[in-house]
């Protein structure tokens, strides 16, 4: 044993104890530092010395100061941080979507029901301005609620971009920090000892990045930590990549990493959740709300456009929506109806316009064919222009303008014409005969010129039908035929009505008569006129149609005399009712015993006949149009003529049409123009209560209810997910602390131990010194 050896061992013991004390105090000092891992000095006994045949211990060997960490746990914490970040972002975002639909349970549903309630309140007093105001106000409350939701849902995508951009900047700066720390760690560890505190700091930065985006970490042998985000290298050693946020062609936010700007498929972390919400959840709710608005406004306005306002028939009506110049030729209105760029499609169908004479209250209904694939808006305006007392034009903004002459008004009411026998053919006071069938007539078998005579008792006139009278003799229209007869015979009137040709005497009364006699070519049978003498009567049969049609489709019935005789007198006299296909719907008994009462015609519609003579042999009949929908083409809704709502059929733009807001009397509660008629309100009510196949076979109310409930479910699920992820994260942190956390008691005990070791080592040195002194003084005198 050498003294030097003993001193050296003691010195190492002193150093070891001092190191231990320093490490313990470092641990105590950082007990509350986030991410700090406790450190330990590792000791081992040093290599023994072989002397004098013995292995002699040479004291302590100081190893290294190493932090205590569980690397697997750290990796799990990164992953968990991503999950917490994404579930939290998802929860927060859904909470804000949920609050769009109403901070309270209800919200949108409440305003919708308010609207229903105001419609119901109006039913009792359809003409009352205050209640009408209530309808308009509550509708506005409903549409502004929808706007709020629509705008809120679109701003979800706006805010996603802004928020992701902000978060991406954080990711980038954290990546820069991480890269710097990588450099520092590599440099520090090149000497061989672990860079404990730098690694702790680096982990902390990596954890923050993981809460924003999901990361995959790669530990390099050099001690560097590489991070991969969505398949792109975010940090490689001492280099970090740029992070950019862009919008793609669909307006969706994208995260790009690296100087080439490659998109990163981020799925986790806060950013991942926001991107996913922007792509799926937000649009799905938005499309559901938009589908609701589209279906609701279309169905509601189909009824509203064909209803009649309190203010009476329209004098001028300008469409709410204008045609767009979709073919780009600078001319508005020359596009086909299918290409006007309108939010709703125009269908092939019919539009009925009722023109009302304001003083006599006489109404005539005109039917316009609408074919969106061959009619332009300008053509359509010309069709309106052709209606007597109306003018139609396309104005400079592409809007359709309909105007009535002074003294006239118009609407689109499906009201039943109470006096359908306009020409007074059925039991008319004037003598008349009609063709048995409606045209077109096939006269190709006739040898032209063909003639027949009309004798009214005063003059006999010859009607000559020639090939040149008709465009196509196999398909002669009633109009052509009537015009040909009218041109040759001045002692009668020949007109075309409902596809039939009617010849009527010029004067009324029992003495008025005319006789039809076949001439060359015998054309009468080919046309469908029975030859013979037709007499008038002093008082014609009055026909009164009443009731309200409650059928679902538009129908065109024909009531035909079935036998000759006096209504109410002739035994067994009947009239037949045919539908548009010629199917017999029923036979009404108007013979002896009939007292002029109302007889059921079809679906809530009745007919009553006054007294007089009817003649089956003169083919007496009249047509009754039963209109369920006076606009089967949706052109009124599409253009915005007499609509209740305006906007682009989306939740963000829907509103009550400004004109109706200004004047609630424009709200169409009536279907026939009577101020006290509330049929349209009933129609609205049954519309709103009915299931909508276009909305998945639920009614509007349930659709909203389901929507809100779905958001509730999804938000609640997101909340539970967030809470459980957070709890998991807390548990992992607990576990990390259990491994790496600083236990003050432990450190204190260590401190105590090292202190005592230090004292012991110091004592050793002093013992050594005494021993040395003893040795030195051995030879010296006392």
């Amino acid at each position, binding site marked *: 044993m050498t003294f030097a050896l003993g001193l050296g061992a003691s010195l190492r013991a002193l150093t070891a104890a001092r190191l231990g004390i320093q490490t313990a105090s470092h641990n105590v000092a950082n007990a509350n530092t986030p991410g700090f891992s406790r450190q330990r000095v590792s000791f081992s006994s040093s290599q023994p010395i072989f002397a004098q045949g013995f292995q002699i211990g040479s004291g302590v060997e100081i190893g290294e100061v190493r932090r205590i960490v569980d690397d697997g746990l750290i990796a799990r914490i990164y992953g968990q941080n991503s999950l917490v970040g994404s579930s939290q972002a998802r929860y927060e975002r*859904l909470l804000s979507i949920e609050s769009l639909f109403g901070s309270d349970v209800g919200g949108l549903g409440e305003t919708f029901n308010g609207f229903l309630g105001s419609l119901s309140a109006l039913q009792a007093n359809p003409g009352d301005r205050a209640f009408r105001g209530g309808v308009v106000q509550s509708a506005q409350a409903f549409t502004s609620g929808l706007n709020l939701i629509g705008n809120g849902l679109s701003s979800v995508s706006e805010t996603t971009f802004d928020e992701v951009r902000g978060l991406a900047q954080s990711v980038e700066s954290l990546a820069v920090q991480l890269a710097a720390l990588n450099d520092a760690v590599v440099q520090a560890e090149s000497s061989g000892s672990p860079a404990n505190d730098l690694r702790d700091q680096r982990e902390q930065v990596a954890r923050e990045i993981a809460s924003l985006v999901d990361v995959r970490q790669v530990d390099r042998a050099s001690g560097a930590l590489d991070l991969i985000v969505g398949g792109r290298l975010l940090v490689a050693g001492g280099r970090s990549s740029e992070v950019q946020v862009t919008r793609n062609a669909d307006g969706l936010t994208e995260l790009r990493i690296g100087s080439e700007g490659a998109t990163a498929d981020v799925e986790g972390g806060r950013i991942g959740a926001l991107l996913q919400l922007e792509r799926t959840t937000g649009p799905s709710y938005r499309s559901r709300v938009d589908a609701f608005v589209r279906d609701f406004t279309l169905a509601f306005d189909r009824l509203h456009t064909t209803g009649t306002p309190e203010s009476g028939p329209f004098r001028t009506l300008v469409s709410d929506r204008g045609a767009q110049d979709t073919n780009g030729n600078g001319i508005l209105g020359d596009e086909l109806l299918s290409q006007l760029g309108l939010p709703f499609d125009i269908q092939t169908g019919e539009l009925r316009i009722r023109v009302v004479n304001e003083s006599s209250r006489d109404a005539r209904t005109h039917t316009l064919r609408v074919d969106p694939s061959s009619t332009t808006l300008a053509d359509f305006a010309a069709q309106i222009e052709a209606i007597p007392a109306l003018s139609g034009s396309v104005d400079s903004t592409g809007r359709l303008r309909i105007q009535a002459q002074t003294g006239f008004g118009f609407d689109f009411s499906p009201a039943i014409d109470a006096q359908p026998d306009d020409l007074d053919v059925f039991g008319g006071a004037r003598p008349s005969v009609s063709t048995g069938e409606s045209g077109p007539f096939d006269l190709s078998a006739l040898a032209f010129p063909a003639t027949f005579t009309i004798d009214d008792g005063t003059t006999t006139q010859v009607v000559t039908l020639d090939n040149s009278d008709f465009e196509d003799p196999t398909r002669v229209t009633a109009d052509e035929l009537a015009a040909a007869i009218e041109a040759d015979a001045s002692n009668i009137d020949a007109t075309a009505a409902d596809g039939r040709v009617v010849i009527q005497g010029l004067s009324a009364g029992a003495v008025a008569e005319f006789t039809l006699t076949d001439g060359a070519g015998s054309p009468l049978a080919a046309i469908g006129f029975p030859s013979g003498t037709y007499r008038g009567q002093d008082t014609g049969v009055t026909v009164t149609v009443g009731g309200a049609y409650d059928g679902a489709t538009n129908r065109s019935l024909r009531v035909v005399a079935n036998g000759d005789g006096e209504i109410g007198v002739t035994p067994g006299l009947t009239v037949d009712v045919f539908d548009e296909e010629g199917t017999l719907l029923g036979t009404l008994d108007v013979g002896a015993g009939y007292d002029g009462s109302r007889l059921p015609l079809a679906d809530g519609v009745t007919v009553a006949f006054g007294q007089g003579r009817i003649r089956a042999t003169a083919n007496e009949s009249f047509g009754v149009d039963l209109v369920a929908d006076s606009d089967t083409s949706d052109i009124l809704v599409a253009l915005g003529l007499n609509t209740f709502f305006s906007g682009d059929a989306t939740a963000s733009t829907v509103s009550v049409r400004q004109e109706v807001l200004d004047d609630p009397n424009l709200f169409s509660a009536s279907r026939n123009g009577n101020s*006290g008629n509330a049929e349209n309100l009933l129609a609205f009510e049954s519309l709103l209560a009915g299931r909508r196949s276009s909305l998945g076979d639920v009614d509007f*109310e349930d659709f909203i209810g389901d929507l809100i409930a779905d958001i509730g479910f999804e938000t609640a699920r997101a909340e539970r997910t967030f809470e459980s992820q957070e709890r998991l994260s807390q548990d992992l942190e607990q576990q990390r602390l*259990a491994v790496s956390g600083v*236990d003050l008691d432990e450190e204190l005990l260590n401190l105590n131990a090292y202190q005592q070791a230090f004292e012991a080592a110091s004592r050793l040195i002093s013992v050594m010194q005494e021993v040395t002194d003893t040795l030195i003084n051995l030879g010296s005198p006392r």
Partner: protein
Amino acid sequence: MTRIPSTAFQLRSLIDLRRNLSATSTLQQQIATGRRVQRPSDDPIAAARILPLRAELQRLDRISDNAQSAQSAIDLAGSTVSQVSDLLIRARELSIQAANSTVGGVERQTLANEVEQLLQQLIVVANSENGGRFLFGGTVDDRPPFERVDGPDGSTRVLYRGDRGRREIEVAPGLREATNFPGSEVFFAHDRGPTLLSGRTGLATIPGFDTGVGTDQLEVRVAGLRTEPPAVGIALGNATNEVVGEFDYRFTAPDQLQIGTGPTVTVTPGQNRIPVNGSGDEISLNLVLPITPTLGKLVVEAELTLDGGETFTRVDFQERLIAVEDSLDGSVLHLDVSGLRRAGVEEVTYQGTFDAFQALIEVRDALRATDGPGSAALQDRLQELVGAVDEAQERILAQVQDFGSRSQTLQLTQNRIATLQDNQTAELSRLEDTDLASAISELEVLNINYQAALQVTARALQTSLFNFLA
């Protein structure tokens, strides 16, 4: 043994305390607002039930409002119509009073004026408004439904300008009730019977189609003579001629004439009265003999008026059935003229059509007609009219009763809706409201737990080796 470093312990304690505090805050909010479900996500399952329940409650509220407004409209209609009953009672008294033989002409005029007052009141009542809308106009409720038309002859008609449209609102789930009342159904009679003629012109009525009400006078006048084929020398004579109709004539000799089935008589040039058909009726003819042809048809055409000569309907005997219109009120009378043989006046009675208006008008007219029937006839007429007033009264009372029972039904309906509302409200409350008793006791428990946790944590955190190694 697991290491539990003090930092881990602190973190754990903090998390637990926070959780406790958040539960406390949730409970506190539930108690403060009284709502257990603040947002749909608080309890999505309950929320999915709450939304339809709320909608259903709102619907019941609407229906209940509807039932109330329907009831008030019906009550108003009922009380309005019962005013008519009072008017009719007074009219009945006046008729009976006037029927007393001691009542003189002047007094009768006074009574007539009072009846006129009653009629005016009746029209005001029938044109009653409800909230600015006419109650009895059907769906035409923006103008007075009953219009009074006074003819130039002092006659009065009351015409209905409304329609028969009924407006019904939902007053109970699946039940509808009208809030407007077509006045024609309330005030006019509906059980029209065959129209009666009381004269001897030979006219016959046809069942149905007639639109007049009460009674009317139909006057048949001789309009002119037509011969078939056209004969020369025959014209109507100067004497009053009552005979109308279609007759065969035959000259067996230039001065021997037979008309119809009557006897052959000798005629002279100029004025002649010739019996027709052996019924005792004679036709006055002015003849210029000889007459050609000697065989033919004599048609004495008639003209009919219902409006005292304002308009005439000519009967040429070519049509068997004719319609005569009263230009004053537009009512139409359908007649079979095949039996028409005599000119004269027919009292037309439209059976079963006595409504309040008509009853008052007829009473007034009977009282006014000072130069009309004598006092005995007047008494008979007034007795008859008392019957008419009673008929009208019966109708009105039936209406009042109808309104009364509808109102009662509505009251019952409202009670039923109120019960439904209570049930639904209770259900809604169970779903979304805070159960205060349990919430408060839960809060109490949480509070105690929290305090205990605080104390224990404080104690545990205080203990450290530092305290003992000084």
